[in-house]
């Protein structure tokens, strides 16, 4: 069952990925005060975007799963959650790489950082809930957790921002004056990463389907 979409997105990625690298490292100018370390920003923003996008998909697929009870919807949610975890991990790793030279600290409890970390925790909890036996129960519970966790994300963000607005801000806004060329590179990163997400999602979805099929065949044999 070869899907034409997977091949298409694979081909597009083979072109877009090198173009994106070119745009980031050669086309976009080096930032005047931050220097070369600013380049991490293009990867950082794009993976954070995918982390959020993947979570929205988990939420939607979870609602649909509760209504329709199709294993395919659960596979979609799980695949999205796994890929989202990978990208949020990238966000959490690239952030400090930039923050240490610029903010002079690896970590700060800024609302965005706090929310990203909590989002990461919820992703891990979601995946932990999905793994293991008693499949039917777990899929249902994971769907419920996916919905509740999604509702929780804005609450985490607002509570953290509110808290920071009461206390003085240690680090003021990032002050990102982007030149036109930088904006092009950022835009290209967002598109490339989105496509990468779509591609990985199809791959993971397929491998989960195959895994299910193997289990089915195994149980038929025994």
């Amino acid at each position, binding site marked *: 069952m070869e899907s034409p979409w997977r091949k298409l997105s694979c081909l597009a990625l083979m072109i877009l990925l090198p173009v994106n690298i070119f745009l980031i490292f050669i086309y976009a100018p080096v930032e005047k005060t931050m220097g070369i370390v600013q380049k991490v920003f293009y990867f950082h923003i794009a993976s954070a975007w995918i982390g959020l996008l993947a979570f929205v998909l988990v939420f939607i697929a979870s609602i649909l799963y509760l209504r329709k009870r199709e294993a395919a919807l659960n596979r979609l949610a799980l695949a999205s959650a796994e890929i989202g975890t990978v990208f949020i991990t990238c966000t959490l790793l690239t952030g400090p790489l930039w923050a240490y030279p610029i903010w002079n600290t690896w970590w700060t409890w800024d609302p965005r950082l706090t929310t990203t970390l909590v989002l990461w925790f919820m992703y891990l909890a979601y995946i932990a809930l999905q793994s293991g036996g008693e499949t039917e129960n777990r899929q249902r519970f994971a769907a419920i957790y996916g919905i509740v966790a999604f509702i929780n994300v804005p609450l985490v963000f607002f509570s953290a921002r*509110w808290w920071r607005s009461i206390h003085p801000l240690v680090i003021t806004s990032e002050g990102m004056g982007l030149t036109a060329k930088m904006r092009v590179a950022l835009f290209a990163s967002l598109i490339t990463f989105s496509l990468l997400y779509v591609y990985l999602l199809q791959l993971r979805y397929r491998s989960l389907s195959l895994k299910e099929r193997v289990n089915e065949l195994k149980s038929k044999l025994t």
Partner: protein
Amino acid sequence: MGKYLNKVFLIYWKDIRDEVRSFDNLLSTILFGVMLIFIFSFAFQLADLDVEQAFSAILWVSIFFSSVLAIQRSFAKEEENNVLDGLLLGTGDRGSIFLAKFLCNLTILLIFEAVITPLLWIFIGASGVKASLGLLVPALFLGSWGLAAIGTMLNGMTVQLPAARLLFPILLFPLMVPVLVAVIQCTAAAFAAPGESVAAWLYFLASFDLLFVIVPLLLFDYILEG
């Protein structure tokens, strides 16, 4: 409506009586909390840190950890002899089971806090400091409400996954982050000089609490499906 509330009350009363009769369970939760605040306040003293400043942090970390013990029992005790099936047959409605369990957990948490909060206050040697009870009590109440609501919902799930009991705190704590931020602000303000208003935080907590009673009520049919 009256009939529904009566149903909720009957399950609630059954659970409370069960807690009273198996008092050692509540007692071990309280003892665990006492141990936690003892270790925290003692460790802070040993490290020569300002323990008074840390009052709200110590209090809520202890409540969060102990709540895992307290809430994890609420559905586990229905497992023996398939009591949960009986409850489902008897009530025919899953929402009322959730509400009753939630109220029971809230009651247990409040009893627990009534013991450890004064104790912590003594341990840190803040007897000279005046606390605003008008702020501390609502903060404890609203914070426990949030813990009990989300905790009850999650416990309804984990109890059906025998291999995954350890997941409960992992699922619970990320969802509790907004509550943690809010209650720490309120509790700290209760001990600070009056002036700084935390009314907005109390409203935030109240809305969070309301939301996370409504959401589980809507979803509870899916949790107790069996």
